[in-house]
């Protein structure tokens, strides 16, 4: 098979995996292992990293079944930060090939006898014996760290080791700091709930603060990596950043703003990604636009609070805010237009149109939950209010025609259908209590 054929085969497989009807975490363990192995092999293919990130919790859980090698033990303090990109993302995340390069260097330059001792010790442990593996890791980290500290202390040597990856010098320094803080990081990971962490108790925040302050002993690089390790596990990273940096972490007053600024890069990446996601959303998908706009606005509000002292970040966030406002204004206008047009047609519209009307109302209601944060609350409430008003008017006219004695009486089934439609519209745009009033009014009119 030629390389080209192989590549075509791989692409086909990736496409098949992407097209899987049942997401990967729902397939059997055996199949999952097979697919995971394949994906690891073709991880540089577009889209594969996204899948691997998505199924990582399951990969992690399945890992105890395998006996780790020394390289895997070496990776433990930094595994939460690994990404598949090859360039520096400049936000604290680490391109996956870099630690592989660093490990190769350590294995070559480190004392062969000590390395052999670690390997022998690891061989003697049982497959699932995590405690024994950890004990070896706790001896391995300081040994590897010493070699690395020695390397990074000489910029020329460090650049030489990196070769064509010389752009990753900051990341190399970060790996060195991570290894120096490895024991504290391990302690933090042991004590924290699994990812994503939605919130932390005061006791947990206290534990994090103590572990960082005691472990880093005022070293800015170590404080940075330890906060970063917790931050990547949090669902609301900006909120965590603001809270933890408000605590005493043993940093000097000169170091504190520098560490804060380094950490804020990850918050900015996250908000920028959300902005990109919003602009990539199909303009006809009002519910998707509202969901993604809410996601962005929530991220923006938290980031603005956390980064209020960073003028450059503030400027970038303000630009993104304008985009969010513009998108939400369009969603509100389009949704209102669709619903108003639907009111004149009523329940006789085709199923697709009825669904589109409901989705437009749902989009408006989603926008209502965050419109206040971007100054559009009046616009959204006004749109919903006018819809409720128009539907009510239509319903009252209908009930009056039923109550009117003499002349042509409308068909009962049709009136019922119109009534239920008005009830539904009022509930979606307003609330169930007002909607139920229309239902009772209608039932009374129908007798």
């Amino acid at each position, binding site marked *: 098979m030629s390389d080209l054929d192989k590549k075509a085969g791989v692409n086909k497989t990736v496409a098949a995996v992407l097209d899987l009807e049942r997401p990967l975490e729902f397939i059997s363990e055996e199949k999952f292992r097979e697919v995971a192995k394949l994906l690891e092999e073709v991880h540089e293919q577009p889209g594969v990293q996204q899948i691997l990130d998505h199924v990582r919790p399951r990969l992690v*859980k399945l890992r105890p079944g395998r006996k780790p090698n020394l390289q895997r033990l070496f990776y433990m303090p930094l595994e939460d930060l690994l990404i598949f990109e090859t360039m520096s993302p400049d936000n604290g995340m680490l391109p996956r090939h870099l630690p592989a390069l660093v490990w190769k260097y350590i294995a070559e330059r480190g004392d062969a006898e000590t390395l052999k001792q670690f390997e022998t010790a690891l061989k003697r442990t049982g497959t699932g014996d995590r405690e024994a593996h950890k004990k070896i890791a706790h001896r391995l980290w300081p040994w590897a760290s010493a070699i690395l500290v020695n390397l990074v202390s000489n910029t020329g040597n460090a650049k030489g080791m990196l070769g064509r990856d010389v752009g990753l010098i900051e990341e190399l320094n970060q790996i060195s700091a991570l290894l120096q803080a490895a024991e504290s990081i391990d302690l933090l990971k042991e004590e924290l709930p699994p990812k994503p962490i939605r919130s932390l108790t005061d006791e947990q925040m206290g534990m994090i603060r103590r572990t960082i302050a005691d472990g880093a002993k005022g070293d800015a690089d170590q404080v940075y990596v330890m906060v970063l390790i917790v931050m990547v596990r949090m669902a609301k990273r900006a909120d965590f950043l603001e809270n933890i940096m408000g605590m005493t972490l043993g940093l000097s007053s000169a170091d504190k703003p520098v560490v804060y600024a380094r950490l804020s890069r990850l918050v900015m990446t996250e908000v920028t990604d959300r902005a990109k996601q919003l602009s990539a959303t199909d303009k006809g998908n009002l519910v998707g636009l509202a969901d993604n706009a809410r996601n962005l606005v929530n991220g923006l509000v938290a980031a603005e609070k956390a980064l209020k002292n960073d003028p450059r970040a503030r400027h970038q966030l303000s630009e993104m805010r304008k985009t969010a406002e513009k998108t939400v204004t369009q969603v509100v206008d389009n949704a209102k237009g669709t619903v108003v047009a639907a009111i004149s047609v009523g329940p006789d519209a085709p199923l697709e149109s009825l669904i589109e009307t409901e989705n437009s109302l749902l989009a408006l209601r989603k926008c209502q939950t965050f419109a206040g944060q971007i100054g559009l609350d009046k616009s959204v409430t006004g749109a919903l209010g006018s819809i409720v008003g128009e539907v009510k008017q239509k319903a009252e006219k209908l009930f009056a025609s039923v109550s009117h004695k003499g002349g042509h009486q409308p068909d009962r089934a049709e009136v019922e259908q119109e009534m239920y439609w008005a*009830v539904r519209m009022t509930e979606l745009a307003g609330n169930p209590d007002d909607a139920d009033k229309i239902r009772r009014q209608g039932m009374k009119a129908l007798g």
Partner: protein
Amino acid sequence: MKPNSLYLPSTFEERGTAAPFTTPMFALSRVRPDERQGLVLLLPSFGGTDGAYVVPWSAVQEIGGMSTHDRALHEEILAAKATSPDMMRAAGFKVAMTGLAGPVAAAAAKKAMEDDRKKIEETHILLILALLTSSGMTTQELMQTNPETDEWRVKTKAMLEKSAREYGIEIDQIYHRIGELSETLAPVGLAISRQEARLRQLLQSLGEFRQSISEWGEADLSEMADFAIYAAAVADLTLDMAGTMFRKLDAGVADIGLVVREWPTQGPLAKHMASRLSWLLDGWQFVIELWRSLADQPVDEQRDGVGNLMRVLPLIPRNESEEDEEDGKKRHELFQRKRLQAHIDWRTGKYDVELVSRIEQIKAKAVA
């Protein structure tokens, strides 16, 4: 009191029938008759126990936050006295068809009603063929005739008259018994004709659910993993019981001639067995669809989903299962040890249009 008897109802009827409400707080609440109140609603617990709040029917709407669909369903259940899964299905369809749970749920209800009707007709034909075969007649010619034609009707009538004479009963009795049996067996399907039907297909979905949630539980790192594995065990127990019930029912109606001939004893027996199956599987379709809806959600949403799902898991009543004391104890301990919290949004008494909309979508799929 034994630990496993603390919260489990003793019979299916005591467990109540699952009502297709769309407001999160009421989703899959159960309804049962009550001597004093007429009807009561069993509202799943929100705390760390597996019990349920018993709410008098007249007080249900006072709890608040109910969608108009649920208010109409609440009224319809009382009017129809819908206290069995089949009656609840009919009441649910009637209200869903108004459109109060959205156009998709309305269309799904309309289609499901149509499918149910077609299935009864199909079962009716299959039963006639099975009866004639059982009477030793060849049905080759009938199989080649369109059942909607007069030709079919004339031919079958002649053949059924022959059977009636043989059985010593009137032909009208045969028609009546076949008619009743068709309605009884339509949701279950006729094994002798390899006929697929709603409840038999549900077993397939339940098997997939058991596999999927068990593997999720094995893979998840949070405390919800134990609950997921427990849900898989309940599904497993349900599958075992359903398998046994299906085998008994299939054997009981294997000879349609015998069932029709000895209708006074065989008819009620078939109805009883089909009804038990319907009770056993009541509520599972919603649980399965709820789980499916989480498949492409982030892991924290899935964990919340497991919490919500645990609240409405159709546990098998004490006297209906063969669960031993040890299993019951284990289940009780799980709920005691872990504080199971339904996601905060599902506990609120406030109407939440987004959550209601999600449940409406699940509901529409659950009747399909």
